[in-house]
């Protein structure tokens, strides 16, 4: 799943602005270089995408380390960043000193962990949630990325639409309605059918593929065998069960709004009561707020079906081809320290993955006015701790299989070109083509 947002244009404009500023700064201090080797002036480039919330932090780092100049390269979308990373990794040159990567492309990069600097060190031991570190650790024990943010999932809902359907509206009661700590997907769909019975014009959730994504992120090894790396998506009964359950709820019971996430239709439907609930990782809150500008009634419940779940999140890596691996490592370590990540959270809502940050009063006291003043810091922090310490296994083919699966579900849910059976056979065809 992608975090491609409609803010692309704003970001593009921002990048241009940053680039202009960077050139201006660059020419201003170019005269004062050439010191002794100890504190030699160096420039570190940092490549990120979407919004990491680091802009102010770079200035802070430069102030504390006068010999370092940080240059920020911001890609508009994570796809663009991934293409750039792959191409230049293959070419062996041209990457930034620090490259941000998203968890979804980590598995394919872990195969080439020797192309990245091993970041493991005693200073950062125990800094992150266990599963966050496990995600970025290669088989040989090398740590290739420092965790930045995570996407602990809660359920965002429209309290006004819930009220119209005769369901409770208070976020505690809604959490209890879905089953509280014992919430299951069946229960979630059950509530959906109740909602739909008294409010047939509004969909219950936005997209079947998104619900499936939420389920897959809770399976230990959904698509591949952790031992051999073989693709097992077609044989894994869990996958087929989830596929059938999602399509029954989404299409047969008509709970879905039949839109694919990030499409024009999906974005537009925030403005016209398109759906009543959606799975909301921390970073999604900003997306909802942006798309649903002027719409009141959004709230967020401290609950998630099937236990905790995590969707997305990023890392900072130091490619081995860089000229200043040590300095880059130090900067990456500084940026991903709890204090800095809390600042980034406050700036852009990227939820920290550092255990210390999760307990920080600074974070817990954060509330979000758009979501009816929900204590989002508290809720997301609890949601993050509910995630299983063992991360689901995602091998080199995860990205491809997951894509094919989303398309399979969308064929039935969005395009309505297939029924679940024919779409599944097309999915089989796509998986066999990967070999």
């Amino acid at each position, binding site marked *: 799943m992608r975090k491609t947002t409609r803010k692309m244009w704003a970001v593009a404009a921002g990048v241009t602005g940053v680039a202009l500023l960077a050139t201006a700064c660059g020419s201003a201090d170019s005269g004062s270089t050439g010191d002794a080797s100890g504190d030699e002036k160096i420039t570190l480039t940092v490549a990120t995408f979407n919004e990491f919330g680091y802009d102010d932090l770079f200035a802070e780092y430069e102030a504390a380390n006068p010999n370092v100049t940080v240059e920020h390269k911001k890609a508009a979308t994570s796809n663009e960043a991934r293409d750039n990373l*792959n*191409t230049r990794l*293959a070419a062996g040159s041209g990457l930034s000193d620090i490259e941000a990567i998203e968890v979804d492309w980590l598995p394919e990069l872990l195969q080439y962990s020797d192309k990245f600097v091993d970041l493991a060190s005693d200073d950062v031991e125990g800094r992150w949630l266990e599963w966050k570190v496990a995600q970025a650790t290669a088989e040989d024990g090398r740590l290739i990325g420092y965790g930045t943010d995570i996407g602990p999932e809660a359920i965002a809902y429209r309290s006004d639409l819930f009220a119209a359907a005769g369901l409770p509206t208070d976020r505690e009661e809604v959490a209890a309605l879905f089953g509280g700590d014992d919430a299951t997907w069946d229960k979630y769909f059950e509530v959906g059918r109740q909602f739909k019975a008294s409010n047939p014009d509004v969909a219950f959730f936005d997209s079947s593929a998104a619900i499936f994504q939420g389920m897959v992120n809770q399976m230990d090894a959904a698509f591949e065998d952790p031992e051999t790396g073989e693709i097992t998506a077609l044989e894994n009964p869990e996958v087929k069960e989830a596929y059938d359950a999602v399509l029954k709820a989404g299409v047969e019971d008509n709970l879905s709004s039949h839109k694919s996430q990030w499409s*024009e239709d999906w974005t537009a439907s925030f403005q016209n009561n398109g759906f009543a609930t959606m799975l909301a990782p921390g970073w999604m809150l900003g997306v909802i707020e942006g798309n649903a500008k002027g719409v009141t009634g959004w709230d967020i419940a401290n609950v998630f079906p099937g236990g905790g779940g995590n969707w997305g999140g990023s890392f900072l890596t130091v490619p081995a081809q860089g000229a200043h691996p040590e300095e880059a490592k130090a900067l990456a370590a500084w940026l991903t320290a709890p204090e800095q990540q809390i600042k980034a959270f406050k700036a852009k809502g990227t939820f920290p993955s550092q255990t210390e940050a999760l307990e920080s009063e600074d974070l817990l006291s954060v509330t979000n006015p758009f979501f009816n003043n929900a204590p989002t810091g508290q809720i997301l922090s609890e949601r993050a701790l509910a995630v299983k310490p063992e991360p689901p296994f995602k091998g080199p083919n995860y*990205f491809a299989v997951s894509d094919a699966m989303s398309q399979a579900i969308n064929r039935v849910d*969005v395009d309505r070109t297939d029924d679940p059976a024919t779409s599944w056979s097309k999915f089989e065809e796509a998986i066999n083509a990967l070999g």
Partner: protein
Amino acid sequence: MATTTTPTPARRTSRSPERAPQRVGFSQQLGRWDVKLSPYLYISPFFILFAVVGLFPLAYTAVVSVHDWHLIGGQGDFVGLKNYQDVLAQPNFWRGLRNTFSIFLLSSVPQVFIAIVLAAFLDANLRARTFWRMGVLLPYVVAPVAVSLIFSKLFADQSGVVNTVLGTFGVEPVKWHGDVLASHFAISTMVNFRWTGYNTLIFLAAMQAVPRDIYEAAILDGAGRLRQFFSVTVPMLRPTIIFVVLTSTIGGLQIFDEPRLYDQIGQGGNDRQWMTATMYLYELGWGAQKSFGRAAAVAWILFLIIIVVGIINFSITRRISSESAPKSGRKKR
């Protein structure tokens, strides 16, 4: 050439060895080289550049296509034609070809016809001629990415303007993304929007080069506007039509930007409704498989297809224009 006199004596000396060899001064020698080689030297930048950025990649792609070649991992074993076999066995490859041809036909054919007609209108005596002529070129200036972003909003399945407008006429909403032909139509619209004006200007330039006395003769023979258009304008445009058809064939079969940006994922739809051959190539090389070998195989297959289709189009265009007015066509040879 004016220089034919210099080489003759030198050649004669070499043919008759019994004569004392005439010493040729170095400067004279240089002059001869200058005469013989300079023309080639002057045109060489193009060919050198072509060899570097055209021929070499072509050959290198062929080499890549017969190897296991991973985007990050690099060159692997020699596998012969296995990549070609693998690709040809994929239903998605054929789907890509189908889509490419369908979009190509839906865009190039109307494009050429509309462009000729538009050019004929612009060739007439209009007020504010330059304004209209520049106007048709405007869409070409807009970046393809921007065009795609705007059109994909217009053609959104549920919230798009096009469906809303159709709805006011009582037409059922069209599944612009779900349906194969509808999606091809929408993408062709983007292509046509961008390229029709460009081709119009090329046709217009060609039309203005048509000697006016031919029209006068036609008028004297009693030809109306329509007859003039078909019997004079179109035949005289033949070389230009061939050029436009060839370039739009090459461009049309390589179409990438518009379909890639037609939705937010960029893989050509859930059922690959509008995935073109180049998008398939990209997906193989940079997508999940990261197989440069297979991507290179697709590139070569596509290259051959474009050559074949180009030749077919070339012969068709030649015939059609000459049939429509055999006399003037033959006179040009």
